[in-house]
C-alpha cells in the first residue's frame, strides 16, 4: 500500500496504544469521577448523614416507628418519582403525573365501589387509563414535537378537569371502599411490624418497583435507549434508535406507573378525593433532582430518585419533630434542590 513520505516513519513507530495516565488525580477530580460513575453515591450519603443529624437533634427520630413512618409518607411520591425519572431522563418533564394518578384512583374507585365491577378489572381499567393519558402526552411530545413542559402543562389542566368531572367533585369514603372493595386498600396494610416499625405493602411495592425499573434501565435495550435519547436525540436517531416510538413508550410507561401508584395511593390515604395529591408534581420533580438525575436528560438513576424522595421525607419529618415550622421545612427542601442542580452543573462542566 502506498504511503505518503511523511508517514514512512510510522512503521517504526511505537505500537503501544495510548495508556491513560492521567495527571489530574487531584482530590476534587477524584470526587467528581466517583460521583459521575456512581450517581447514587451523593443522595445515599446525604440520606445517611441527614438521618444521623436529625437523630441527634431529635432523638425520637431514630426510632423504628418514625423511620418507617417516613417510608410510608414517601411511598406514593416515590412511586410517581420513578415515572418522573423515566421522563426526565429523556430530557422531558411531566407536570400531569398528579392528575393522572388521581384520575386513575377514581376510575378504580368508581368502577369497583359504585358499579360493583370485579376488583381486578377495575384496577386494570385504572392502570389502562393512566397508560393512555401518558401515551397521549408522549404522542404530543414525540409526533407533534411540542416541548414536554408545555404539553404536560396543558394536559395537567385537561386531566384535572376530567378528574373533577368524573369524580363529580365528590370523594369516595373509606367506609364505602371497605364495604365494597376492601382489597383496594391492601397496599396500606402492614406487611410486617419489626421492632415497632410498620412496613406496609405499599412500601415494599415501592422498593420492588424501583428494583424492576433499575434493572430495565441498566440491563435492557429499551433502558439504554431512554438514556441515549435524553443524552442527544439526534445522535440516538442516527444510531438507529426509533426515537419517536421510544419516547411515546416512555410517557406511556410513566402513565402506567402512575396508574399503579393510584392503587397504592388509595391504600395509603384510605379514601379517594379529587383534591388529594395536588402537590405531587413538584414533589416528584424535587425528589428526582435531589436524587441526582439531571433535568437536561441522559444522566441519573431510579434508586437516586427513591433516595431523593426519602431525603425529602427525612427532612420534613425530622424538622417537624424538632419543632421547626412548616415554612422552614420548605426552605430546607428548596435549598436541597438548588444544591442538587448546582452539583449537576458542576459535573456537566467537567465533561464538556
Amino acid at each position, binding site marked *: *500500500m*502506498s*504511503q*505518503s513520505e*511523511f*508517514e514512512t516513519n*510510522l512503521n517504526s*513507530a511505537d*505500537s503501544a*496504544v*495510548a*495508556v*491513560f495516565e492521567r495527571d489530574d488525580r487531584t482530590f476534587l477530580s477524584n470526587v467528581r469521577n466517583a460521583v*459521575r460513575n456512581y450517581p447514587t453515591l451523593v443522595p445515599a450519603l446525604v440520606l445517611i448523614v441527614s438521618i444521623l443529624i436529625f437523630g441527634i437533634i431529635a432523638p425520637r427520630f431514630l426510632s423504628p416507628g418514625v423511620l418507617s413512618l417516613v417510608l410510608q409518607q414517601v411511598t406514593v411520591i416515590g412511586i410517581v418519582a420513578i415515572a418522573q425519572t423515566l421522563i426526565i431522563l429523556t430530557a422531558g418533564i411531566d407536570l400531569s403525573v398528579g392528575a393522572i394518578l388521581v384520575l386513575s384512583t377514581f376510575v378504580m374507585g368508581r368502577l369497583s365501589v359504585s358499579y360493583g365491577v370485579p376488583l381486578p378489572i377495575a384496577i386494570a381499567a385504572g392502570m389502562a387509563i393512566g397508560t393512555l393519558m401518558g401515551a397521549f402526552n408522549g404522542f404530543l411530545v414525540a409526533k407533534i414535537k411540542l416541548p414536554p413542559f408545555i404539553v404536560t402543562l396543558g394536559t395537567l389542566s385537561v386531566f384535572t378537569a376530567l378528574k373533577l368531572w368524573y369524580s363529580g367533585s365528590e370523594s369516595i369514603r373509606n367506609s364505602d371502599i371497605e364495604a365494597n372493595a376492601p382489597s383496594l386498600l391492601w397496599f396500606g396494610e402492614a406487611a410486617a411490624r419489626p421492632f415497632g416499625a410498620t412496613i406496609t405493602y405499599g412500601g415494599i411495592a415501592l422498593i420492588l418497583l424501583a428494583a424492576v425499573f433499575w*434493572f430495565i434501565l441498566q*440491563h*435492557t*435495550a*429499551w433502558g*439504554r*435507549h431512554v*438514556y*441515549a435519547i435524553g*443524552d*442527544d436525540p*439526534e*445522535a*440516538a*436517531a*442516527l*444510531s*438507529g*434508535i*426509533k426515537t419517536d416510538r421510544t419516547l411515546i413508550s416512555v410517557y406511556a410507561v410513566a402513565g402506567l406507573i402512575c396508574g399503579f401508584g393510584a392503587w397504592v395511593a388509595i391504600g395509603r390515604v384510605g379514601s379517594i378525593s379529587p383534591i388529594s395529591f395536588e402537590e405531587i408534581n413538584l414533589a416528584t420533580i424535587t425528589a428526582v433532582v435531589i436524587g441526582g438525575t439531571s433535568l437536561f436528560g*441522559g*444522566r441519573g438513576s431510579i434508586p437516586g430518585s427513591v433516595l431523593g424522595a426519602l431525603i425529602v421525607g427525612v427532612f420534613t419529618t425530622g424538622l417537624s419533630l424538632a419543632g421547626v415550622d412548616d415554612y422552614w421545612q420548605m426552605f430546607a427542601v428548596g435549598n436541597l434542590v438548588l444544591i442538587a442542580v448546582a452539583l449537576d452543573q458542576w459535573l456537566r462542566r467537567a*465533561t*464538556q
Partner: protein
Amino acid sequence: MKNITHNLEPVLQAKGLMKRYGTVVAMNGADFDLYPNEVLGVIGDNGAGKTTLIRAISGATAPDHGVIELDGKLVNFHTPDDARNAGIETVYQNLALSPALSIADNMFLGREIREKGIMGKLFRKLDHKQMETFARDKLSELGLLTIQNINQAVETLSGGQRQGVAVARAAAFGSKVVIMDEPTAALGVKESRRVLDLIQDVKSKGIPIVLISHNMPHIFEVCDRIHIHRLGRRLCTVDPKIISMSDAVAMMTGAMEPPPEALAAK
C-alpha cells in the same frame, strides 16, 4: 483519458435528489452511483452538499425529490434505522455518539445483544460481557483504545478517539455499504493511517465504501473513483489514476471545466 465504464450494476444509486432548506438549495438534482467492490471518494467545497447527499442515502434526511435504489430496487428510508437494516452503515460528520453512554453501549446502540437463556428471553437482559468483548476487539484492531477503557463514557474520550469509535462501529456492522463522512478529520497521522487501512480491510470483504474527505492525498490513495460534488450536484466522476490532484481541486472549485468524457461517464 479513458472512460470509467462499468459492466456491473451499481449497488447504490441516487437520481435527481433535491433538498431545500428555506432558500438554501443543499441538493440540486444530485446523482450518485456506487459500484460493487469500489472505494468511491466524494470531494467538494464546504457547503457543496456532500453531507446532505449521504444523509439522504442513509435515511437521516428525507430528500424533497429524487429516487434512491439499492441493488436496483427502489428504497425509501424514513429513518436511519431503515438504512441500517438494509446494511448501510454510516460514520456521520458529527459522529452521532451518545456522550454519557459507554463505548460499548455506543457501539451496540440500536442493535444490542441479549443474553442467552431465560434472562435474555424472558427479561430481555443484555449480554454486556459479549458486547464489551466485541467492542474491545474492534477498537484494538483500530489501535485507538486500551482495554480497560471500554466502559468509560464517550464524553471522556478525545475527539480523535471518538471518531475512532464511530469508524469502528460502522466498519464492524456494515454489510452492504459503508459510508464515512470525513472519518479522519480529527485524527493524527498514525490514526488516519489505521482508518485508511481499515477502509482497505472493509473493501477486501467485498463491501463498497463511500469516503468523503477534504484530504486529497487520502482520497487519491485509497479511492478507485472520485465523485466531484459542486453546488448541490455531481459535477463528474474521475479516475484518480489518470487525473491529477490539482486538476481535481480545480474542477471541484470551478476553476476548470471537467473533461467531456468524465461528464459522459457519469
